[in-house]
């Protein structure tokens, strides 16, 4: 090993960009992403046998929602890493010739998978009430792509915020309609509602990073609790298998 290589490696990792990275809490970000991805994949694989045996569409959409959440969180981690590493506030601050295109593609995929995850979750509850056409899924995919494209094409924070508030309103409407028709109270809808709220806050946190300064830890803890709650309900029902 050439003389001084160790120092160069150390400086490479603890130089200005990486110093910034650790200062901003990459550990918290990684741990948070790890917990959410693990929870989502545990739900996805934990319900695999139930779906294989029953071929029940509701279980299929429910599982898809968690798979898409896991993928979305993976892309979210990449975005967070890039932002922390380069000490930037937003992806649009990247130079197009360095990480600009990569950052935008990651953002596109993150918003697409996030939106689809929410759509799948809603569809898993509503598929029987809707016209059971396979076109519904295509339409939801198109809607998710449109949302993702608008999020990367628009540099206006109000558009990002408005889109996500619109998504949240859809969730609230669907949850309200489903809840209204129930004779007895069902805490699942409350969990879904909280979960969607925190999920959308997570999306806004990526698109408009300065909006929730100081509230980030609260959003992370609340999101983790809702994910763990759903994982607990799944494990309780599916069993040790």
């Amino acid at each position, binding site marked *: 090993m050439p003389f001084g290589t160790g120092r160069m490696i150390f400086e490479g990792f603890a130089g200005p960009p990486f110093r910034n990275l650790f200062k901003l809490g990459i550990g918290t970000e990684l741990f948070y992403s790890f917990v959410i991805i693990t929870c989502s994949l545990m739900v996805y694989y934990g*319900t695999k*046998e*139930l779906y294989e*045996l*029953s*071929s*029940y*569409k*509701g*279980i299929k*959409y*429910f599982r898809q929602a968690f798979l898409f959440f896991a993928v979305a969180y993976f892309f979210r981690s990449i975005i967070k890493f890039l932002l922390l590493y380069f000490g930037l506030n937003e992806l649009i601050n990247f130079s197009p010739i360095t990480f600009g295109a990569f950052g935008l593609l990651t953002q596109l995929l993150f918003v697409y998978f996030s939106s689809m995850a929410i759509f799948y979750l809603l569809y*898993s*509850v509503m598929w*029987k009430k809707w016209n059971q056409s396979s076109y519904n899924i295509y339409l939801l995919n198109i809607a998710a792509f449109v949302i993702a494209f608008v999020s990367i094409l628009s540099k206006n924070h109000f558009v990002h915020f408005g889109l996500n508030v619109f998504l949240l309103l859809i969730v609230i409407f669907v949850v309200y309609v*489903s809840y209204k028709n129930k004779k007895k109270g*069902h805490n*699942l809808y409350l969990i879904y509602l909280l979960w969607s709220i925190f999920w959308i806050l997570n999306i806004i946190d990526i698109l408009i990073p300065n909006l929730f300064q100081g509230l980030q830890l609260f959003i992370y803890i609340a999101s983790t609790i809702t994910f763990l709650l759903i994982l607990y*309900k*799944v494990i309780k*029902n*599916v*069993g040790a298998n």
Partner: protein
Amino acid sequence: MAKRGKLEIMQNILNIIQQNHSSIKITPLIRRSNMSSTRFKKYYLELLEKGFINEISSHKNKLVSLTEKGERFLERYKTIINFIKEFEL
């Protein structure tokens, strides 16, 4: 509701086979499943396609037997139904 009904019908057919020492002739199976032969055929073909049952031809008779996957379905049936109810799927 239609699909949950479908799962229940599949469970009923598989249960009849299991109660008959895991193999039964097709005619008594249709009779005991309380379905029209057209309706029965639809579910029967689906059970065959999913690998829950097997057809065994011995001499002049055609026997229907339960596979390992079919037995697993019966074991997990209650879990599947409870899961669907719990998550309102």
